């Protein structure tokens, strides 16, 4: 009976869940409830993904008002894929969070944490599913506000300044998006994405529309931490509670990448953005600089969480690189990397969180000799780290492989070479941690308090690790979804509008 309402449920469920969670006084109950809600959203997202792979696009008119007048939810393969990643990671993180949060957050704030998490999930799902440009802004702000709260919940005082910086940058970004949407509305008189696409296609070059696009791209670049607008990200991910870092690293910036893809490919059309405005060169250069600069910075960090945060910025560079190749193969590699990166970064941040749980520190000194003391956690870290590097039989290898192939397809030998060199830097920063963990003696060998992480933290971590291996070997599901998504996005936007 409810199958036709599935496109809206991944948003509505957590949105209803959040206030209910707030009313549940006990931390345990709130945890159980939030996890169930998130799990159910995940289930629906998977159904949506399978349906869209099968049938193409699902459109849902909210309030029964037909699209350009009412708000439309529009789920196709591209957003169903990212939606599955977001809801899936959210569920795993919630399972993981129970013990991690117990240790890191004050007891009477636990329900607030779960409420904020659900709000964040609702916001991210909303950004992904919506087919309306202004509605996207509203959900962007829900998820951002919830994120600021989540980051600032950490007990470290530096989390406060990090959250504030995030808030200022995030609000500037959102306001830029608002300006851009306003300029688009000014010239077209509509807010529905497909309608926008059809009407923008009528102009061949327009200064207002160009400026609007530029503002949207800058705003989104702030949100997705594209170099050089990434400075808010490392402190926020470093000082946030571990569960929050694991969730955000895998989802928040990736959703922003999706928004960029949506605006470029669906609304303005690749032709307009890349050929008329020459955005591809700018994005390509920024992506390559991001990969190298941030990988270098990552190699000298002493805090492992900061290191992973910089590594995230570098990985975002790979995604943007894929997009800026302006081919279906490149876009597909970028989307695939969104999926795979969520798997590996989620696992890495969870492992770091587990170490933090036992040792109370994220400094690299705490990792001395951990290979013996927390073997399962460090094994997870190793495998996920190999995936970041791009070693064969891991998920990371698959996306790098497609990225390199996409570059070579265009005869961009230099870019392919740079992608491979970037991976070498990943070897350095991941290797540093592995070296101290396996080949150094612990600073205090008599300390017996440090033992393996609790089971509830190990299970979601290992699910992600196994997923890393699974999607490294059997690529049929992830690759076919990403491939379908990129083909879907790559058809000229105006045609999509005409279909309706």
């Amino acid at each position, binding site marked *: 009976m409810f199958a036709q309402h599935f496109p809206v449920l991944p948003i509505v469920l957590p949105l209803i869940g959040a206030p209910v969670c707030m009313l549940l006084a006990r931390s345990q109950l709130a945890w159980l409830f939030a996890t169930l809600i998130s799990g159910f959203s995940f289930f629906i997202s998977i159904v949506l993904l399978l349906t869209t792979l099968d049938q193409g696009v699902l459109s849902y008119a909210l309030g029964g008002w037909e699209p350009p007048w009412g708000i439309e939810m529009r789920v196709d393969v591209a957003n169903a894929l990212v939606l599955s990643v977001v809801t899936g990671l959210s569920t795993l993180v919630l399972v993981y969070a129970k013990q991690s949060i117990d240790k890191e957050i004050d007891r009477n704030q636990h329900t607030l944490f779960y409420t904020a998490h659900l709000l964040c999930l609702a916001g991210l799902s909303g950004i992904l599913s919506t087919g309306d440009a202004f509605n996207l802004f509203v959900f962007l702000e829900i998820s951002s*506000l919830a994120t600021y709260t989540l980051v600032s919940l950490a007990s470290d005082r530096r989390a406060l300044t990090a959250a504030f910086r995030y808030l200022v940058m995030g609000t500037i970004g959102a306001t830029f998006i608002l300006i851009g949407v306003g300029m688009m509305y000014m010239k077209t008189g509509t807010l529905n994405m497909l309608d926008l696409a059809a009407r923008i296609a009528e102009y061949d070059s327009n200064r207002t529309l160009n400026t609007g696009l530029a503002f949207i791209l800058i705003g989104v670049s702030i949100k997705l931490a594209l170099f050089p607008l990434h400075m808010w990200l490392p402190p926020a991910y470093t000082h946030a509670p571990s569960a929050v870092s694991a969730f955000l690293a895998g989802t928040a910036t990736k959703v922003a990448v999706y928004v960029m893809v949506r605006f470029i490919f669906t609304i303005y059309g690749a032709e307009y953005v890349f050929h008329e405005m020459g955005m591809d060169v700018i994005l390509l250069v920024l992506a390559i600089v991001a990969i190298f600069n941030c990988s270098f910075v990552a190699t000298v960090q002493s805090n492992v969480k900061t290191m992973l945060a910089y590594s995230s910025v570098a990985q975002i560079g790979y995604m943007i690189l894929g997009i800026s190749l302006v081919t279906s193969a490149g876009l597909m590699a970028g989307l695939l990397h969104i999926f795979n990166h969520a798997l590996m970064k989620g696992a890495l941040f969870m492992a770091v969180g587990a170490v933090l749980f036992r040792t109370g520190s994220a400094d690299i000194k705490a990792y001395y000799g951990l290979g013996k003391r927390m073997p399962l956690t460090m094994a997870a870290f190793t495998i996920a780290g190999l995936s970041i590097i791009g070693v064969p039989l891991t998920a990371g290898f698959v996306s790098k492989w497609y990225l390199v192939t996409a570059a070579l397809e265009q005869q961009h030998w230099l870019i392919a070479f740079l992608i491979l060199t970037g991976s070498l830097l990943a070897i350095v920063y991941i290797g540093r941690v592995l070296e101290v963990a396996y080949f150094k003696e612990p600073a205090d060998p008599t300390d017996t308090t440090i033992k393996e992480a609790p089971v509830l933290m190990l299970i979601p971590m290992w699910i992600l690790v196994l997923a890393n291996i699974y999607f490294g070997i059997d690529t049929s599901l992830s690759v076919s979804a990403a491939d379908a998504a990129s083909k879907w996005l790559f058809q000229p936007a105006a045609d999509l509008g005409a279909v309706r």
Partner: protein
Amino acid sequence: MSFIVDYYNYWIVVFLMMAGFYIVISANNLVKKVVGLNIFQTSVFIMYISIGKVSGGSAPILADGITSYSNPLPHVLILTAIVVGVATTAVGLALIVRIKRAYGTVEENEFKDKDALI
């Protein structure tokens, strides 16, 4: 001349936006940053409302004897955006209060002296 009449509104609004934006990125004091953000956003709201204005039109509430109404859609959007803006302001100010308690200052350049940020 008609060029100026057509666009003067947008140009002043751009100036206002940039004044707000300048306060955000140049101010050292966090409270002033938040004030700047608010000015920036409020100016964007004026831009939106200008889009919806119809010369000779009236407020979009049905009344006898009025035929031309201004566009209600930007009004709705900005109603939403105002509330979003104040929500962000509230959270930002709450963060400032906590920062003051934790660091003893709300001047951005003084944090680095007290605590390596990254």
